[in-house]
């Protein structure tokens, strides 16, 4: 594909605009609150046996 040919994308405007200066500015749609507020929610879905879960995900060979 030449540099003019890109993957055809059909996207809505749901991504938000590029940030204005400074980088910490609130984006409107993007949640820039401190990450602490989501840690409890994530704790609720974390698998219980960390070592076993990680071990089962290590791929053994293959493509």
């Amino acid at each position: 594909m030449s540099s003019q040919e890109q993957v055809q994308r059909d996207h809505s405007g749901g991504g938000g605009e590029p940030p204005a200066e400074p980088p910490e500015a609130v984006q409107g749609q993007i949640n820039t609150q401190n990450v602490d507020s989501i840690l409890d929610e994530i704790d609720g879905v974390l698998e219980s046996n960390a070592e076993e879960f990680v071990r089962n995900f290590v791929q053994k060979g293959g493509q």
Partner: protein
Amino acid sequence: MIGQFDFDDLVAGLIPFFISRQILCGSGRVGIGREGETAGFQISSRADFFEAQVGLETTLRRPIVNTRDEPHADPAKYRRLHVIIGDATMAEPATLVRFGSTSLVLGLIEAGLVPRLELADPMQALWDVSHDLSLSTKLPMSDGTSMTALEIQDTYYSACFEHAGDDADTTEVLSEWKRFLDGLATDPRSLSDSIDWIAKWVLLEGYRKKENLDWDHPKLALIDVQYHDVRPEKGLFYKLEKADRIRRLTTDGEVEKAVVSAPDGTRAYLRSLAVTRFSDSLVAASWDSLVLDAGEYGIVRLPMSEPLKGNRELLEDRLAEVHDSQALLQALGVDRLKTTNDERGAK
């Protein structure tokens, strides 16, 4: 890829790009070293598993440039570049920049316009970039100078910007690529809504601070893996995205539609049509051919060696009234169906 170009030029153009590209689209990894034996966090999940610049293998002695060249298309016209160095991105902006920037760089290589950069030790550079979250490591170049990964990416970006077309997709890719480069230069954490290694890093640092965890704590390795869980109710990436902490470029509706609808602009359209409307006659479908049972005319193989043909614009009207395999083959220009097994394909 299109056209006749030197494989060595392809390798020379790609290696510095692939080594530095991870800062834009790495997906992060807890643990440094092949076994993760050193505690810490790094930018790329795959970097530690690469050992060679060029090679054939994909599961050991992994190369930055993989020489598998099965074009699945007319080999006189097309070549296929098999890329194995990219991490699995989840954040849609990172995915856009990952594929979009690579496509533009390949275009530069095809046109003979790619920047001529050469690292003194590409493998060491690959690992050093991944292991340095400050993005400041100076990579020795073969001409005695040194550059950071960001400076290498800036060089590729500028060349693409100078020579790019002005279609909407190219403009979008360049704009996002530039936004990433500016953010990485000033404050990488500002891109925690766009790049997986940064989103993951911010999340992990949140836990480290809250629960006073060292990098070798099992909970952090768990978070690293579960970030990528594809189950919507379990995947930590999806939790972040649903909480509007990650930018999206698509909607759920568009994704659902794409699961069952082939792209319109390529031979995927014809392949999809064969599968949905002619499934009774379809014997086999591959990347570059269909095999149809044409009844009394036997089994016919229909090559699709042009990736951009067989698209909706060319075929939708022509095939609207076609309902059986013989009529399909005739509509596609298979003009010599005989009542013996005949291997002729379409033009």
